[in-house]
């Protein structure tokens, strides 16, 4: 297990300079996620037009994995349709071994081709206690979408 696989540069970059980190004006949906054990917190807000998530914000405090995952998620989600977002959530959870799938979702020969920056989070799989950190913003996104 290598710490370099976990703390990729791109993860530290998102941790230090989180994207979409300002509250939205009158969001259409929002949810708060908390991990009471470790104190990670993230609020996800979305703006929807028709079927599209036109804007998204994730604001929180917590470890580098939870906050980087939130930041990368906002970049991946913004501008996508609900259906596309649902597929993204599925792929993320498969990549993180949170959900099972018959087929791999990430092609090791084409890094970034499937999930972009998010693929940097794959290293978290080798640190099982941290998977829930990476998953927190995604659980919260799903709740915000259900509103």
């Amino acid at each position, binding site marked *: *297990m290598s*710490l*370099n696989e*976990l*703390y990729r540069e791109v993860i*530290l970059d998102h941790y*230090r300079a989180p994207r979409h980190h300002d509250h939205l004006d009158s969001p259409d949906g929002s949810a708060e996620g908390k991990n009471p*054990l*470790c*104190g*990670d*917190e993230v609020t996800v807000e979305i703006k929807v037009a028709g079927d599209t998530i036109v804007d998204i914000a994730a604001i929180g*405090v*917590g*470890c*580098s*994995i939870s906050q980087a995952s939130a930041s990368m998620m906002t970049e991946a989600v913004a501008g996508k349709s609900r259906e596309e977002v649902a597929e993204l959530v599925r792929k993320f959870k498969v990549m993180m071994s949170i959900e099972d799938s018959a087929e791999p979702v990430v092609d090791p020969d084409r890094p970034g081709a499937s999930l972009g920056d998010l693929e940097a989070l794959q290293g978290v799989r080798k*640190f099982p*206690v*941290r998977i829930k*950190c990476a998953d927190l913003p995604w659980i919260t996104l799903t709740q915000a979408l259900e509103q």
Partner: protein
Amino acid sequence: MTDLAHIRADFPILRQEMNGYPLVYLDSAATSQKPTAVLDAITDFYETANANVHRGAYALSEIATDRYEEARTRVAGFINADRREVAFNRGTTSAINQVAYGWGLYNLKPGDRVLLTLMEHHANIVPWQLVSRHTGAELVYVPHTESYELDLEAYHSLLDERVKVVGITAMSNVLGTINPVRQLADAAHAAGALVVVDAAQAVPHMAVDVKQMDADFLAFSGHKMLGPTGIGVLYGKRELLEAMEPAEGGGEMISDVQLDSSTWAEVPHKFEAGTPPIAEAVGLGAAISYLEKIGMDAVRSHEVDITSYALERLGEIENLTIYGPADMTNRGGAVSFTLADIHPHDLSTILDQRGIAIRAGHHCARPLARSLNVPATARASFYIYNVRADVDALIDGLHEAREIFGVA
């Protein structure tokens, strides 16, 4: 300094490797490791003496009962109490719940106050909140000063005739702060309040004398003092225990049961409903013998040595903030800190890769974390089996964390 390096050999778990490194266990405030003497006492009990207690009129049950009651005598001696003032239970949490539900529920009224410190562990907060829903009593908190000591001025000004119970941690599991329990108890008694002491961190690490403290109730856990999990102690002054209601009912705690009411067994048995943790009590007895052999003064001076070394080495790291008293005279071996903008969880993961176990989070003291204005801290905590090399390993690991996170 007392050299306790040789006792590491008594703790089998310390021979293990973790992630390819020798285990460096720095989480004794959460739970302590167990010496062979304790493990052997538990095995021996099951192999030679196991039966239910206070029940069977046969030799084996008498042997089991004797062992269980011997453990009670040991505990009583350890804290300078009478053996009838020592009730066994699951741990600090269940002991404080017994006081809240056995005393608080029957004696608190609307308008009354429960005065707690902001340093309390959830175990000395939540039971009072639960009971307040029935009694209407209000919870009030004493803050800490900027040097992480209890704000005595605030304490005295909050201590008025409305206060019926004062709940104090003798030693904070986050800040390490040792509170002046006797002084606080004298003031509380003068104001007509009872004092409930959370001694989960104090009893394992320093000599505790309930009479000298003048505690009305005092709670601690076996697992933090080299004993097994599942056993804890509620001490209460005899007359208070006599007057207090049991929070749990069932077998072993009655003197007679009629169809719609019962009378209770004598103290402390009326607080021990059901089959108690017998082997665990025996294990706690063995842990106390082990600690007594070393001597609590030697335990304390070893921890003063190692903690002051840790404070000194941590103090050398730039951008590292320690949350707790700087001076060893009023602090124990729990050292909470943050390092630059590296989240404590990330620190914990990085250290874990080097076999170093620390705690990250709010340490079951959310109100305190909020008043410190940090969502989480890292905590290293020490016990008799830790050595200076453990501190050195921690420091090396923290330097690696700085490198990984590019902290200048």
